[in-house]
């Protein structure tokens, strides 16, 4: 039987031990409470690869009697290596020392120690007692500075003290840790004990690959969502021509509802890719994503500025023209590309900033029926993409330990636009516009080919965002 590396996450009550474990093993169900002392039993959370457990983290209760425990250990007359076992033997039936027994048992069984502390508060005697106890165990140990409130005033004082007791000290905020930070923490655990290097290296590799896979899944989901939404339309028979406006309004309402539902489904699927419980995931209070997709705020904040929108449309129109130029074996001297680009640019110029409700949706009137949709403004794809990307950003920064509060992405753009697409290169925006054109048009073959390019683009963008 192979012995896997086990790490006991130890600390004072309410310092964020459960949060660290929840974030590392991506488990939303670990009880994280603002009230101290909720964890009364050690719980082991293994990480497995193809069903084989490779490492495990043990969430432990907090110290309740550090001074007494340290006092007993100092008075212990046997060899240092036997102190822990002797302590556990002596106090195994003492209910008052139950937490100490629970948290020290994994250490006696060979677990490494991850000591979690809130470095946003001052260092106290009781902390020194806990550190000394852990030092006396002689186990490989690392300290994690978890600044719960973001206050760093006492950080240096902590570091100085911790260096005396621990092999390694790292800063890690479980509530806001990014994927890259999690990987760095796991990487640093490798250095703690040579025997664990291989197992941890494997875990880091698999985590990284799994993350890329999730990004690829999300990109595929987003493309599929765009294809569905951009091709959506609603039709109804029109018995009385005088009732056209009323029928149109009803259809617009129905189409909006269908698009909202699709977007909600996409967001839920992205959440599930990152193992977040949909019930626990919440958008920040003032996030613009809480605004309705069809609200004026959404269209003010997301999408491209008029100039960029026109440029993207010109690029897409030009690309279509290039195909025609190629078909003429160049004899058109690029005329189609120029004319196509200019026409698309003009269309975007006049449609780009339309109001959303009603007017934004394409209205085609048949003889005896009314049709609303497919969407006819290129800005749509950028707004939908921005909302997807922002939601993705929240999801990957939504720690499994997060229990509320707010977090916002960095300010992204000049000129009032806060979407990610406004920071994209001209080529990327051009591809989006081209995809929009193909998805809303009849060119299914081209749409399928462009979807693959869009997927690649989004995969790269999601990877980039993961490293932000």
């Amino acid at each position, binding site marked *: 039987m192979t012995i896997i590396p086990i790490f006991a996450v130890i600390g004072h009550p309410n310092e964020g031990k459960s949060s660290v474990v929840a974030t590392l093993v991506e488990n939303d169900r670990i*009880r994280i409470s603002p009230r101290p002392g909720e964890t009364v039993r050690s719980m082991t959370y293994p990480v497995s690869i193809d069903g084989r457990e490779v490492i495990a983290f043990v969430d432990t209760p907090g110290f309740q009697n550090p001074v007494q425990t340290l*006092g007993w250990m100092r008075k212990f007359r046997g060899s240092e290596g036997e102190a822990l076992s002797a302590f556990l033997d002596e106090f195994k039936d003492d209910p008052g020392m139950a937490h100490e027994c629970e948290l020290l048992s994994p250490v006696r069984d060979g677990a490494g120690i991850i000591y979690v502390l809130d470095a*946003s508060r001052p260092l106290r005697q009781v902390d020194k007692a806990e550190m000394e106890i852990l030092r006396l165990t002689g186990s490989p140990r690392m300290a994690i500075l978890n600044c719960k409130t973001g206050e760093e005033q006492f950080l240096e004082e902590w570091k100085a003290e911790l260096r005396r007791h621990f092999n390694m000290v790292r800063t890690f905020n479980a509530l806001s840790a990014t994927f890259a930070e999690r990987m760095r923490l796991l990487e640093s655990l490798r250095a703690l004990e040579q025997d664990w290097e291989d197992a941890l290296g494997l875990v880091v590799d698999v985590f990284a690959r799994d993350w890329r896979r999730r990004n690829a899944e999300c990109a595929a989901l987003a493309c599929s969502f765009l294809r569905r939404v951009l091709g959506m339309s609603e039709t109804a028979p029109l018995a009385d021509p005088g009732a056209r406006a009323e029928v149109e309004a009803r259809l617009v309402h129905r189409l909006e509802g269908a698009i909202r539902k699709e977007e909600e489904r996409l967001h839920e699927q992205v959440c599930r890719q990152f193992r977040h419980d949909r019930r626990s995931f919440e958008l920040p209070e003032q996030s613009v994503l809480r605004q309705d997709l069809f609200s004026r705020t959404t269209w003010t904040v997301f999408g491209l500025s008029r100039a960029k929108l026109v440029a993207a449309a010109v690029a897409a129109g030009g690309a279509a023209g290039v195909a025609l130029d190629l078909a003429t074996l160049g004899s058109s001297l690029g005329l189609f590309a120029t004319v196509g680009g200019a026409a698309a640019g003009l269309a975007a110029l006049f449609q780009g900033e339309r109001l959303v409700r009603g007017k934004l949706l394409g209205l085609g009137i048949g003889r005896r029926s009314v049709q609303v949709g497919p969407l006819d403004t290129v800005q749509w794809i950028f707004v939908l993409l921005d909302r997807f990307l922002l939601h993705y950003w929240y999801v990957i920064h939504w720690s499994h330990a997060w229990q509320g509060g707010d977090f916002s992405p960095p300010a992204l753009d000049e000129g009032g636009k806060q979407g990610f697409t406004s920071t994209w290169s001209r080529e990327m925006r051009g591809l989006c516009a081209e995809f929009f054109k193909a998805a809303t048009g009849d060119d299914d073959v081209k749409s399928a080919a462009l979807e693959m390019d869009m997927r690649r683009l989004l995969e790269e963008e999601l990877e980039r965002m993961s490293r932000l």
Partner: protein
Amino acid sequence: MVFLTRAQILRLCLFCQAACVLLRLSFMKHGMRLGDYLDLEWFLEKDRTSEPLEVLDRDRKIGLAATAESVAPALHAAYWLAFRRRADDKGLPSGSLRSILFMLRLALGLGGIVAGVSLTRALLLYSGVEPVNVSVFLLLAVFPQVGFIIFAAGLMAFRGLRKIELGIPLRPLFNLFWSRPGSLSPQAGFARSLFLRRGWPARMLGWEGLRLAHLGGFCLALGSLAGLVVSVAVTDLAFGWQSTLQVGAQGMHSLVGALSLPWSWLPAQWGLTPTLAQIEGSRIILKDGMGALANADLVAWWPFLCMCLLVYALLPRLLLLASAHWMLRRVERGFVHPDLSRIVDRMRAPLLGSARTAEAPSAPLPLKAAREAPMALSVTEPGALVGCALLLPPELADRIEAGRLSELTRRVCGYPDPRMLPFSLDPENVRQALAQCSGFEWIGGHERFVVLVEAWQPPIRENLLALTLLGQEPGRSLVLVLCGRPGGGNWLTAPTAAEREVWADAVGQLAPLRVDIFGADL
């Protein structure tokens, strides 16, 4: 006689199963077909409503099974499909498609043959009075088929070259056959909805439809030819030609020569083309009747008519059928489902798992503030009168001005200028503090202890034991002052509501010990 053990039978079964899968896969080596893509979409649709982790787990298991069976990486997607089909025993869209196509092929094949036979039989009616008119036969049995073939070939060439979707009006067709889509099986309904979407399913179905049409045409030509051959073999037939125009036998011979060009290279003695004499001898002049015509001339036409049907109807149809088949295969091969790469990725990526079990609900903190025996204060020190003693963390002793602390105790217990006791709140330190206080002379003989606690530190058992130890002496009053996190150089900040609540609850467990609680922000 050889008996196999249960384990051997099981191994044999597994081996056979693996062999079957590999055999199926070898048939799929050329790529996936329309039915495969339909099933793929069916399974993907099912997966869309499944939990991603379950999908991931299942696909990884399939991937591991593929690796164990040494399936080539290029065939992993096909293996995935075969595996899913085996696991799904409730019918698949490909099965519905297969059934429908089988019925259509049967109907078109049989219908074509029956129609062909009927057509030729109708044209070959001969009662000994008037020979079968060769021109009418060509006009009704051969030339229309040629016309359709030219039209179909032109359409195919046009569509094939431009590589655009075959615009089959699927919705009206479906509505014609399935006026109530709800009555369809889920699999057939799914296939219907898939075909009604634009894209590859409709495109592939277009070529499949064309293939069916050419099958019908082929069977029609086959039926015509068979009808002619069988009629010639089992009935007495006479063929002749007639015309009001003065074309003469030479003119007819030229026309026949032109039509028989494709097989003119075959030996003349086979009699596949009537000679000028035979044409001359089979001309019907109604006023002369057919008594003057030679029998040999009247039967010389049938090989020519057979060759016409073969060369101008049957073979081109076969060619078109093969072309439609090839085009369908080309479209199937050229199409790569965008989700295949995702499936293969899931099959190959190691499955990362973590325990999903929820933590058991925790019980309240097992804090039993054991009452300790009253301390025998042995040390007696003379001193001034003491109004109250302030126990505070040693780290705060030098950081807070004495005046502020004096003001604090005055407010909470009415006595300023407390005796400072910089001790941690644990039993050991409290014992030392009490020992230090043993010599105090208290104003009014009443001991008053004010304990300053940093409330951002949650109360642990040692804190509560220390409070018990401190307050258990009769006649001693105990006041707890909670301060919050330090900020801006101020150490006597207000605790948060949550911190107050946590400490109040914890101290509440020490009842009947009475402890008054205040915030430091008085």
